[in-house]
């Protein structure tokens, strides 16, 4: 391709970083290089703290992607900078869990310090709010999360996530098995499931998953076995497996814990899924804000490969599999499966219209299974104990256990695993109940894209079907408690701002609708005129309906859920608007 460049040229250092990031990866057709774009932009960002015009031109030239196009991709991601800034950046989470736990005090302290800082959407450390992430660019780049954080930004204040529950199956190894040791993993039963899967053969594995009636844990609750079967039988090749580890739903940290504390289980689960569908190249896409998860998964992939558990011939079975780790760069929308494909392909992370669905036209236009970490983590259990046995846990419609991320006004925030069917109240009791001396006012279920329910919902069994019947969703397993001292209107405003900031901007209903929703809520919080308030409540309903009906993807379609549910279930703003 004939590309045109501005006069900006890359320094020797910039060229070395780009060349280093691309070393050994530029085989083959120049047109097939674009998928390397995000990794190489990451490398430049990590080293220099921004992507300058010379470096961008050199990236563009190396990959054969036009500079304007590269710029369009770079500016899509919040973590990639196209203007020079400080090498050390402090990101303060001011999202719904952290905003009620001292985020503003941290921001105020940073404002009067010499640190460069900015606000961040949820960092997935909600159980130990308030959280910060410190990224340092340079020859030795680093990223450190601190939770809870104090203005001193001392990493020593960090605590580990509490883990509990009434049925620890997915979480069974956490706290007992060294997550960095393949030997320890195998000694604790690890990789027995892969051996079993190789005996079962791909069709046998899929039959067990279908018998298990495993539904996806990412929010859409699609039957996993059907996806596996569709891709296994797809005539087009290659078949791809993508593990969606772009967990960014505010309030969610379950996949982070699985990756950080049991990374070999994630790699083994991916190996089983890849075997079932005839995939030789799999990807795990980990959100950029999870440096430790990326480090642990990267380590686990390398260890597994060295032990012959990945590579050209897995365990002498003749099956070849490579797993490539990809890092996100600050974009919630990339958790949407088709946006994630575009991101891996080196494009802007904009969702695609569906149909066609991923099982037929997914990553690189090929049949693809995409599931989140928790969903895949169930596969070793299903293979080991058999699908029928697996389905005995939980309810017939919602088999197995479920991970819930408890945060907010709960006594022991943390990650809890319970069988489906456990009531919301019982789950909260496992975490010690509502914090002492507080009165429960509302619960956010399922994340920012979820629903806000009243304490009446405590008796609801946590299943897909009960949630649906109650007009709620389990979403990504968020259970965030708000007590009566929390200003729920401020929570709603923050949720609206989250969607406004995270909309990719592709379609009008979401790009403008999320802005108008945020503006209407802002007015509702500040304006006392009852006529105007009534108009704004009705306007919110109209905006929400259009976003739900006409947006391309789930982001826009769910961006009004929490707000509408709060107005409906809690009567928020209603008293004032009727007065």
């Amino acid at each position, binding site marked *: 391709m004939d590309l045109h460049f501005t006069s900006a040229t890359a320094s020797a250092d910039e060229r070395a970083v780009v060349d280093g990031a691309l070393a050994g990866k530029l085989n083959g057709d120049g047109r097939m290089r674009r998928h390397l774009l995000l990794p190489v932009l990451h490398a430049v960002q990590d080293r220099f703290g921004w992507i300058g015009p010379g470096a961008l031109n050199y990236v563009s030239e190396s990959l054969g992607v036009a500079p*304007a196009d590269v710029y369009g991709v770079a500016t899509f991601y919040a973590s990639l900078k196209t203007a020079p800034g400080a090498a050390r950046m402090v990101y303060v989470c001011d999202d719904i869990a952290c905003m009620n736990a001292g985020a503003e005090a941290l921001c105020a302290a940073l404002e009067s310090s010499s640190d460069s800082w900015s606000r961040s959407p949820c960092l997935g450390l909600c159980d130990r709010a308030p959280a910060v992430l410190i990224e340092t660019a340079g020859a030795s780049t680093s990223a450190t999360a601190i939770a809870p954080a104090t203005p001193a930004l001392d990493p020593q204040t960090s605590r580990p996530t509490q883990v509990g529950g009434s049925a620890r199956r997915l979480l069974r190894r956490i706290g007992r098995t060294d997550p960095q040791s393949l030997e320890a993993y195998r000694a604790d039963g690890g990789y027995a499931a892969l051996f079993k899967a190789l005996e079962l053969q791909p069709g046998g594995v899929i039959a067990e998953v279908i018998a298990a009636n495993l539904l996806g844990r990412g929010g859409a609750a699609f039957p996993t076995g059907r996806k596996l079967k569709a891709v296994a039988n797809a005539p087009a090749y290659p078949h791809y497996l993508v593990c969606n580890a772009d967990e960014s739903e505010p309030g969610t940290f379950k996949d982070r814990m699985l990756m950080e504390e049991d990374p070999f289980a994630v790699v083994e689960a991916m190996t089983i899924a890849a075997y079932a569908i005839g995939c030789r190249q799999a990807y795990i896409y980990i959100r950029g804000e999870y440096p430790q998860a990326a480090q642990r998964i990267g380590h686990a992939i390398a260890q597994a490969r060295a032990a012959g558990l990945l590579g050209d011939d897995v365990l002498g079975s003749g099956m070849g599999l490579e797993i490539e780790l990809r890092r996100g760069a600050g974009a919630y929308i990339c958790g949407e499966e088709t946006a994630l494909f575009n991101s891996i392909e080196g494009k802007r992370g904009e969702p695609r219209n569906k149909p066609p669905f991923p099982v037929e036209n997914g990553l690189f236009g090929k049949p693809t299974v995409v599931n989140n970490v928790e969903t895949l983590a169930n596969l070793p259990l299903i293979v080991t104990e058999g699908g029928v046995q697996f389905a005995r846990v939980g309810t017939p419609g919602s088999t197995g256990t479920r991970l819930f991320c408890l945060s907010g006004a709960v006594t022991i925030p943390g990650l809890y695993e319970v069988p489906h069917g456990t009531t919301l109240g019982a789950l909260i009791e496992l975490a010690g109940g509502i914090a002492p001396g507080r009165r429960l006012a509302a619960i956010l279920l399922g994340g920012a894209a979820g629903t806000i329910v009243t304490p009446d919902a405590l008796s609801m069994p946590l299943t897909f079907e009960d949630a649906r019947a109650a007009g709620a969703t389990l979403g990504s397993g968020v259970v965030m408690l708000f007590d009566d001292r929390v200003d729920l209107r401020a929570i709603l405003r923050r949720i609206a701002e989250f969607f*406004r900031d995270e909309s990719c901007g592709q379609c009008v209903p979401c790009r403008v609708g999320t802005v108008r929703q945020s503006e209407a809520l802002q007015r509702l919080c500040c304006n006392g005129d009852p006529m105007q308030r009534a108009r704004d409540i009705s306007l919110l309903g109209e905006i929400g309906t259009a976003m739900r009906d006409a947006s391309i993807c789930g982001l826009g379609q769910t961006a009004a859920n929490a707000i509408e549910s709060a107005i409906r279930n809690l009567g928020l703003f209603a008293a004032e608007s009727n007065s």
Partner: protein
Amino acid sequence: MSVELTIDDRAVHVEDGSTILDACKQLGVETPTLCFLESLTPVNACRVCVVELEGSRALVPSCARRAETGMVVRTDSPRVRHSRKMVLEFLASSVDLSTAPEAQRYCRRYGADPRRYGTDAATVEQPVKIDNALYVRDYAKCILCYKCVEACGTDAQNTFAIAVAGRGFGAGISTEYDVPLPESACVYCGNCIGVCPTGALMFSSEHELRQRGQWKEERQKKTDTICSYCGVGCTLTLHVQDNAIVKVTSPIEDDVTSGHLCIKGRFGYQYVQNRPPEDDSPA
């Protein structure tokens, strides 16, 4: 092969591979579109063409959704009218649609009232970019339909001078680092102007006449001719006002151009209207 579907209770047969929009056209059902153009790959971003499809939770974009046998489609249900109206209100309240007559017509048809979002509603207002002699870019009028990017890219020109940059409400059409067009890869084919539905991209000649209040479309005459520069034979439509060429386009249905031209055909017209100085026209 043909497929049979039902649109607004009327059966229609279309060729396999047709879209719901094609089927609507065949029935004479007028469907508003903004980001759609026959010569470009559908991006289904504006969502003004959405229709209700039985069995589908959300509405579907008729411009991109393939027609399938057995589909039951409604194009004028309350849900469809609501979404279309809201999309138009969202655009009209955030973008200057003063030079977008089609969009204005749709707004009237669906009763869109952008004023109800208040005077503080965020807009994409920004200064017009004038950095070359041939055309201006007024992104305060941009609805982000992606058409210019597609025309600059693989759908027509393969120049890739512009892309969508940024995200969300802050997303916009940009060169790398927003450098002026003369520093970019732009070759001034003007195909972006040709596909722009809102006048955000405009000939300098038109922009200047509009600034002076002298742009009079009712006084313009359109004349088709064949470009004389090379042997390709592109059809040019000369827009002439007061005996001066003020704009050049090409018909989208033209077999040779599909509406696209090069810099010479689009902008190289002065030689046919060089006159002695005393006759110099205002254009």
